[in-house]
């Protein structure tokens, strides 16, 4: 009965590779997010999708592309991985249509680029 789930939990890969992280929520929320947490624990939003449409796109490299096949899923695809992409990536969701901004977070995906 996990609310927000992410796969994989850990991802170790070589520089230059392409990888994807998947996120699913079963809360019936209409908005999903991706956040990046760097080595100093600082959390920053990357993308926000509302009903499969992009509503926030912070300044992230074009190598990062979110894809939302339906409102319960928001996947993150990363091309040409670089050392600086190593971080923990969190997915989250909220019910904006319901007037609630409370965000619920997934367990995180720790990405290590070698």
């Amino acid at each position, binding site marked *: 009965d996990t609310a927000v789930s992410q796969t994989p939990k850990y991802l170790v890969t070589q520089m230059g590779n392409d990888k994807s992280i998947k996120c699913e929520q079963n809360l019936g929320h209409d908005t999903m997010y991706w956040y990046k947490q760097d080595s100093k624990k600082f959390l920053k939003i990357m993308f926000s999708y509302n009903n499969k449409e992009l509503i926030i796109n912070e300044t992230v490299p074009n190598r990062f592309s979110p894809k939302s096949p339906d409102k319960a899923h928001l996947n993150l695809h990363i091309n040409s991985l670089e050392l600086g992409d190593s971080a923990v990536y969190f997915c989250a969701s909220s019910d904006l249509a319901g*007037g609630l*901004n409370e965000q619920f977070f997934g367990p995180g995906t*720790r990405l290590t680029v070698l």
Partner: protein
Amino acid sequence: GIQVEQSPPDLILQEGANSTLRCNFSDSVNNLQWFHQNPWGQLINLFYIPSGTKQNGRLSATTVATERYSLLYISSSQTTDSGVYFCAVGNYGQNFVFGPGTRLSALP
């Protein structure tokens, strides 16, 4: 954009002690949440508290929206309280901004 500050940056508590964590933000918001990131990296929702006071067991929080701050109270701390406490704020449909966190070490 909205700026968020948290204090103190680091905190060491003996088991059983009480403490108050503070979050200041630079603009009016309609969403404020407190999170606990445990030593395993999980982000746990503590409170959704854009205004007012809430209590949950040994934890309580108060947000004074007009003065742009929120407080998180931890009473009778336990070792399981260790981790990083984040305050995050935002407005409907806009960025949700996290503070830098307060790192708590609760000692036995």
